[in-house]
């Protein structure tokens, strides 16, 4: 019987091999053109050292013949893309790439590409997931992936330093990295005085522009020593370590501005825990989960995804998870009103957030202090948000702030003369619409607040 083998849509750029689905299992097929490299990397223990350090995804050899080598990488529960990372995640992914490149050079290899999609977030850290990105180092040759490193990593990070972390989202519209000329033209002119930015961005953009028309390949590329290459890597690493993004806030208390006193806050935590734990969930997502406070309060071993629109909240969650080695926590940036679309060739190269969530199939979805934003700031009717949650959730824990709640009050006031258009925002209409997709299992008022907590089960 022929096995179902579907080539993964994101895996076509590199002729060395590709990723495919063998039934439900993701495997990697390596083609003869890459056999020599693969064998050298395996036999020298290169792969092993990096995966033992948690820097490269580990894999096992599944089969081998003269036409193909099949390897099976360790399963990663959820793939996030660069444009969904917080600044800190992006920064650490860049540092990881430089680290791996420098290590590879000590072993006679190097990275043949430096795409940001080689990296994803796993167990609280960035991890390199493309085992075929390595090649033999060629003495004297400049790094071919240098420009890619600048357009995929260095550029977006430097732009964030000057214009805030929203710059990272530019990666969504530029799947091959932000063009050099664009980075250079956006940066303030004072960056021309920085030797690192002048050389790695402005000079690079100028030279790229100058040699763009060399179709005959007549210009000679001079040699670059290994030492010189290492110096470039060291200086980029040094520079990136110190980078901060423009709108970064200090580690703060995210819940100091909410509508809760300490008692209600604890009551909410307790209630959620009581409802969620008996479900014995393996995968939980907290949509709009801020810095992960409520996901953490569950004290669960389940894989936890916490998304938020606020990069600072995501960064803090990420740092907290790292500090406390919470391997099950995955934080990333997402706007519920505009989840990441599918992008790339044929619109299938990178999956949309919804596609990935459907595959991930969380057992429990939490949406706390979110519905009033979706409904009143985003003008999304209840039946639309209900159908959105129903598309990927089995059990939904959702908080509904009533009209008496001060947050809701201020959102309504902002509607001014259109305030009557939002009369539908009430408890009974909310329930009615959500019951189209869900069965109402539990409902309780959060002590000391005008907020209700609901537990819905998908129909």
């Amino acid at each position: 019987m022929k096995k179902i083998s579907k080539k993964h849509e994101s895996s076509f750029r590199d002729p060395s091999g590709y990723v495919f689905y063998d039934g439900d299992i993701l495997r990697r097929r390596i083609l003869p053109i890459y056999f020599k490299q693969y064998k050298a990397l395996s036999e020298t223990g290169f792969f092993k050292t990096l995966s033992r350090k948690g820097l490269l995804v580990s894999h096992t050899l599944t089969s081998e013949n003269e036409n193909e080598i099949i390897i099976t990488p360790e399963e990663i529960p959820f793939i996030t893309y660069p444009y969904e990372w917080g600044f800190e995640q992006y920064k650490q992914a860049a540092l990881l790439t430089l680290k791996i490149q420098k290590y590879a050079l000590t072993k006679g290899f190097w990275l043949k590409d430096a795409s940001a999609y080689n990296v994803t977030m796993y167990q609280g850290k960035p991890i390199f997931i493309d085992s075929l990105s390595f090649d033999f180092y060629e003495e004297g040759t400049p790094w071919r992936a240098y420009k890619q490193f600048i357009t995929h990593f260095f550029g977006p990070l430097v732009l964030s330093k000057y214009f805030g972390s929203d710059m990272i989202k530019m990666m969504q519209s530029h799947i091959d990295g932000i063009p050099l000329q664009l980075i250079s033209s956006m940066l303030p002119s004072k960056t021309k005085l920085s030797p690192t930015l002048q050389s790695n961005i402005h000079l690079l953009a100028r030279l790229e522009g100058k040699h763009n028309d060399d179709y005959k390949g007549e210009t000679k590329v001079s040699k670059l020593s290994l030492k010189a290459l290492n110096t470039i890597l060291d200086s980029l690493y040094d520079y990136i370590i110190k980078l901060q993004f423009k709108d970064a806030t200090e580690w703060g208390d995210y819940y100091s501005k909410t509508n809760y006193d300490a008692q209600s806050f604890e009551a909410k935590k307790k209630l959620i825990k009581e409802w969620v734990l008996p479900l014995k969930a393996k995968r939980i997502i907290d949509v709009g989960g801020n810095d992960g406070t409520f996901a953490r309060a569950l004290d669960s071993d389940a894989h936890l995804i916490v998304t938020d629109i606020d990069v600072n909240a995501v960064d803090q969650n990420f740092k907290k998870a790292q500090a406390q080695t919470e391997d099950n926590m995955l934080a990333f940036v997402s706007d519920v009103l505009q989840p990441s679309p599918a992008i790339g060739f044929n619109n299938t190269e990178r999956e949309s957030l919804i596609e990935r969530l459907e595959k991930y199939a969380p057992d429990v979805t939490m949406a706390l202090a979110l519905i009033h934003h979706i409904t009143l700031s985003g003008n999304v009717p209840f039946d639309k948000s209900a159908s959105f949650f129903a598309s990927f959730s089995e059990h939904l824990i959702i908080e509904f702030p009533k009209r008496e709640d001060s947050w809701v009050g201020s959102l309504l006031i902002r509607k001014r003369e259109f305030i009557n258009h939002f009369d539908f925002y009430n408890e009974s209409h909310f329930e009615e619409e959500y019951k189209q997709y869900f069965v109402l299992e539990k409902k309780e008022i959060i002590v000391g607040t005008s907020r209700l907590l609901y537990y819905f089960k998908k129909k």
Partner: protein
Amino acid sequence: MTFLYFDPGLGAMIAQGLVAIVAGIVLFSKNALFKIKSMLGLVKEDDYDGIDIDEADADEDEEDK
């Protein structure tokens, strides 16, 4: 043989010689400054690991298992 499936950019290949010279000067002056600062006791601890991967560490991890 290296097969490259994307354009490395001719300008970017040429630029690296110059980039490396600048990087060398930046790192040199930074190290000199670092030495002065550490003599004066002004050095702050960094939260991040250095660029170099410590293999010995990896072997120990293995022995632990």
